[in-house]
């Protein structure tokens, strides 16, 4: 038996619904249809009345989730694509994000955002928006890179008393497989050493973890041992694990699929430069998507985002510094 990243997300939602009567799911086409990506397949049949189809009203969807949370529920919102969350932006960052701080009442909502690029997705079905959410106070931003994390972090997200922005990567949905679902997991907020190494640290998250691992594999043949850190949660950022890794390797490359300006990679570099300056044997580097919209055409798209190849090139350059 093997289970995909997407199935893990479905399974986590099924478990959350089964375990906790406060949980419900709200989003476009999530009901009988099972969602645009089938992440809620069969759930409306298994849990009648608890998986609600929403109108095309992202602002009202998030607003209602906030109200339900205040009334004691644990809503999971599915946006059809992360890109459409820009319509629910105000409710997410201003209302949900500030709720606990203003009122002392928690606002436990989980917003599932199918994000990241796929071939042919184009400018508005490919975005990686983690940084704009992480910029705001009061939210937790998760970016699971593995099947196991997709499962256990989503369960965590539902359990957490704060708004969680859960970026699931569409590129990983079908391709990424695991043997079985985990029974235990690292705590939220802890990064993971996805591959140990001593010559350089590559910090990555979401789909980029796999590109980084592939690059590390490639460089292993050149007798370079790269440590890959999977952030798992980009906010809070596990600065300790990053710093400990950089202390071992002396070199840092941070990779993100999002745009560079003010991205997660900028935040990681800023923190390491500030707090780990003396650990560095070379200037820290980052690799991001190009600063243009995400292109539609596969060959442009492949050049727009970081890939194992471009990461390997950047890593080799960094080793030479």
């Amino acid at each position: 038996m093997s289970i995909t990243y997407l199935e893990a997300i479905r399974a986590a939602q099924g478990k959350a619904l089964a375990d906790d009567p406060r949980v419900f799911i709200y989003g476009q086409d999530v009901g009988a249809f099972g969602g645009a990506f089938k992440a809620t397949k069969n759930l409306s049949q298994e849990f009648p009345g608890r998986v609600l189809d929403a109108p095309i009203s992202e602002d009202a969807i998030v607003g209602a989730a906030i109200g339900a949370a205040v009334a004691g529920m644990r809503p999971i919102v599915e946006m059809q694509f992360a890109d459409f969350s820009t319509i629910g932006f105000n409710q997410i960052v201003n209302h949900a994000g500030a709720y606990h701080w203003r009122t002392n009442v928690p606002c436990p909502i989980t917003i599932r955002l199918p994000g990241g690029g796929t071939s042919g997705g184009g400018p508005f079905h490919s975005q990686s928006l983690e940084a704009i959410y992480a910029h705001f106070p009061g939210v937790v931003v998760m970016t699971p890179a593995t099947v196991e994390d997709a499962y256990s972090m989503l369960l965590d997200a539902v359990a957490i008393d704060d708004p969680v922005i859960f970026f699931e990567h569409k590129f990983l949905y079908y391709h990424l497989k695991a043997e079985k679902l985990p029974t235990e997991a690292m705590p939220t907020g802890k990064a993971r050493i996805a591959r140990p190494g001593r010559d350089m640290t590559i910090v990555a998250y979401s789909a980029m973890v796999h590109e980084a691992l592939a690059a590390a594999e490639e460089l292993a043949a050149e007798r370079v041992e790269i440590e890959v850190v999977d952030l798992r949660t980009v906010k809070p950022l596990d600065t300790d694990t990053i710093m400990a890794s950089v202390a071992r390797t002396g070199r840092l490359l941070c990779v993100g699929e999002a745009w560079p300006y003010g991205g997660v990679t900028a935040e990681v570099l800023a923190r390491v430069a500030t707090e780990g300056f003396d650990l560095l044997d070379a200037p820290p580097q980052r690799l991001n998507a190009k600063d243009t919209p995400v292109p539609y055409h596969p060959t442009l798209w492949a050049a727009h985002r970081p890939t194992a190849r471009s990461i390997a090139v950047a890593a080799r350059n960094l080793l030479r510094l």
Partner: protein
Amino acid sequence: MVQSVVERSVPVEDAPLRAEYIKAFRGMLLARVLDDKFASLYRGGKIHGGVYLGRGQEALSVSVGLALRPGDVFAPLIRDGAGRLAFGESILDAVRTYLGSVLGPMRARDGNVHRGRPLTGLLPMLSHLGAMVPVVNGVLLGHRFKGIRETVGATCLGEGGTSTGAFHEALNQAAVEQLPLVLVIANNQYAYSTPSSRQFACHSLVDKAIGYGVRGHSLEGNDLEACLTVVGDAVARARRGEGPQLVVARLLRLCGHGEHDDASYIDPALKSAPFARDCLRLAEERVLAAGWMSPREVELWRAECVQKVEEAVAQVQREPGPDPYAEDWCALASRHLSEGYHGA
């Protein structure tokens, strides 16, 4: 879609609503006195930021607060001082929030009209107009999930707020889910300085009801009896499971947008329209004319209001403001997930 249109009510000699009317009038007067105090504190430089009053809108607002009961949810807006008090908000909560006492519900983190106590059903507003409507829907959905029956959710907007996408998405959402939402629109002719002619082009905002498949009600917002009747009817219908109710009241804002604003843009012609008459004065005339209260009773109540408000203000002025050194700057409820990282 059926529409109830109540025109100016004809005074009934001894209406059965006598007790409710008196209660409402007293609530309106208290709200006015509190508002006046905020205005004078503002002029005296005692309040940080803006002050937003409900002058001229008390009849409508108080009716919303009175029609609700414990367990219901209310998301008032900037002109709902009267409705808040009627729903059960304390004078202290209002004063503490305006004066920035840490003992207030917002603990000096948020101010003025941005106050509430979500767990008692009083939702603190987001500044962004329209944003409260879907949140009320969500509370009602939550009640439905939890099997809590016969609760109603009410929220208020100005006519300007109807131009927001949030209003539209949420009213439609309530209609699709058949939620017991009562959405009260105070068409006070202006959104800040913008007249209705630059805000919408329909004949009356109540004409929107049919396009959402909800019941529409319209009334003169300075007529307390009409407000009590129509809002009461709308709330009762929502409670009975008849789905969302859209109430549209016509009135005039009898103050500036905020106390910094002299409202010199208001068309003088409007000021002499019947719907522009002060609802509080009309209600007072009515209780006196009907002999429901004597002039002395009114004066006693006014004096009592002043005393309550003065006492609250005096108490709050002795209360501590926030101590920034005691503040731990943690936005998350899950403290263990707080980075505590502020870039410093």
